[in-house]
C-alpha cells in the first residue's frame, strides 16, 4: 500500500452549481485513513454531486477535492487506480457477462485479485453466463462490488449501495464490507439512506442539509451529544436551558425536545430545576438524530 497521507479524501471549500441552483456551498471535511465515513443527506442535498467531484468526474464551481493529497479533477487518472467505486446506478455494458467484465477490467489494475473476485461472484450467486443487462438489481450491485474490491482499493466509494436491494442482499453487502475492512483496513466513503444498516459500521458521520455540511464528527461524539428529553408539567416560565433544543414540541402530558448539546453536567443542572422524577432522557439512534436534523424542513421535497 503506497502513500501515508493521514487523510485519504480532503474536501476543501467545495461549491457545486447547476445553472442558478447552488447544490453545495463551502463544504469541507476530511476522510481519515482507515475510517468508514458515512455521508448523509436527504435526496437532492448534493451527495452524488460531491461523490462525482471526489472521483474527478465533475469540475467544482469553487474549491476542490484532494484524493491521496492530489487534486481529484487534475490527477484523476493516477488516483483512480487506488479507488474502488460502487456507483448509485450499476453501470456496465449490458451484453457482457460478469466473467467477461472481470477479465476486461483486470489489466487496468496492477493490484487486481482475480481469484478473490471470482470467489465473490460465487458467494453472491451471480450467474456467470448471463449478460449484465439481464441480471437483477441485486446481482448488478454484486457485480459492481466484486469489480470494486477486485482491485484491492485503498479507498472504497459506495454511493447509496443498498438502494433497491432486498434484506438478504443488503446483509450480504454489509458482510462483505466488514470483511474487507477487517482484512485490509480499507477506507470507505459511503452515502446512504439505510441509517440503521450503516450505524454499527460507520465511525464518522457528515450530514448535508441545504447545500451545507451541518454535522461532521465521530459517530460516538454525535450520539453522545444528542438526546430526547421529556418533561412533565412544569411551572411557567419554562426553559430547556442549559440544553439547546433542535426540535421542541408541546404534548398533552408536557413537552419534549431533541437536544444537541447533552452532557451529564447539563442533565444534572436541568434536573435540579425541573425535578428529577419529572424528566426522562432517551438516547437516539442515528436515524432519529438524522430526522431531527434534516427533517426540520419537513415535507416531501
Amino acid at each position, binding site marked *: 500500500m503506497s502513500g501515508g497521507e493521514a487523510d485519504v479524501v480532503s474536501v476543501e471549500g467545495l461549491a457545486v452549481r447547476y445553472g442558478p441552483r447552488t447544490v453545495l456551498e463551502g463544504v469541507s471535511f476530511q476522510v481519515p485513513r*482507515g475510517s*468508514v465515513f458515512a455521508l448523509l443527506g436527504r435526496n437532492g442535498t448534493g451527495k452524488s454531486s460531491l461523490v462525482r467531484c471526489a472521483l474527478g468526474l465533475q469540475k467544482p464551481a469553487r474549491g476542490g477535492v484532494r484524493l491521496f493529497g492530489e487534486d481529484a479533477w487534475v490527477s484523476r487518472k493516477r488516483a483512480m487506480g487506488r479507488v474502488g467505486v460502487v456507483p448509485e446506478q450499476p453501470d456496465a455494458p449490458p451484453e457482457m457477462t460478469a466473467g467477461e467484465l472481470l477479465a476486461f477490467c483486470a489489466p487496468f489494475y496492477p493490484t487486481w485479485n482475480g481469484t478473490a473476485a471470482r470467489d465473490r461472484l460465487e458467494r453472491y450467486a451471480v450467474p456467470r453466463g448471463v449478460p449484465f443487462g439481464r441480471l437483477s438489481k441485486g446481482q448488478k450491485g454484486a457485480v459492481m462490488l466484486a469489480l470494486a474490491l477486485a482491485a484491492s482499493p485503498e479507498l472504497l466509494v459506495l454511493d447509496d449501495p443498498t438502494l433497491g436491494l432486498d434484506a438478504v442482499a443488503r*446483509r450480504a453487502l*454489509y*458482510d462483505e464490507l*466488514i*470483511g474487507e*475492512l*477487517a*482484512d485490509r483496513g480499507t477506507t470507505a466513503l459511503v452515502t446512504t439512506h439505510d441509517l*440503521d444498516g450503516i*450505524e*454499527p*459500521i*460507520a*465511525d464518522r458521520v457528515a450530514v448535508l442539509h441545504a447545500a451545507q455540511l451541518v454535522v461532521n464528527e465521530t459517530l*460516538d461524539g454525535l*450520539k*453522545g451529544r444528542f*438526546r430526547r428529553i421529556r418533561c412533565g408539567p412544569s411551572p411557567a416560565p419554562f426553559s430547556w436551558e442549559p440544553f439547546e433544543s433542535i426540535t421542541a414540541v408541546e404534548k398533552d402530558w408536557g413537552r419534549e425536545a431533541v437536544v444537541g448539546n447533552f452532557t451529564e453536567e447539563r442533565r444534572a443542572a436541568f434536573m435540579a430545576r425541573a425535578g*428529577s*422524577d419529572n424528566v426522562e*432522557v432517551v*438516547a*437516539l*439512534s442515528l436515524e432519529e438524530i438524522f430526522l431531527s436534523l434534516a427533517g426540520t424542513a419537513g415535507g416531501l421535497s
Partner: protein
Amino acid sequence: MLRIDPRDAVPIWKQIEEGLRRLVGAGSLRPGRPVPSVRDLARELRVNPMTVSKAYQRLADGGVFVVRRGEGTFVAEGPPQLTRAERAKTMREAASRYVSLAATLGVSKDEAAREVAAAWDGTRRGRGEE
C-alpha cells in the same frame, strides 16, 4: 452470548468490552482459551472491525485478555494484574455509573444493594463457585 444494541447511548466498543468482561466473569469465556478473531466477531455482530479491535485492545490493556504474537488473543489465565489504586478506581467508576442509573429510576439504596448481591451470586453460580 454477546449482544449489542447499536441504538444504545453506550458506544458499541464499550458494549463489546463490557459484554466480554461479563462473559469472562461468568466463566463462559474460560481462562487460557482463545477468543474469536476480530474479523469473526465483527462479522457476527455486524459492526466495524475497528470497534471490536478497540474493545480487545482495552481488554488486553486491562489484563483481561493477553495477545500472543502470531497466535492470537486469549483470555488471561488469572485475574488482571492491576494495582490496588487502579482496581479501586475502576470499581468506583462502575459503582458511580450504577448508582446514577438507579437514582434516575427512583430505586432505593437497599434495592440497589440487593440487585448487586443477586448479580454477584448469579455470576458465581455461572462459574460453579457457589
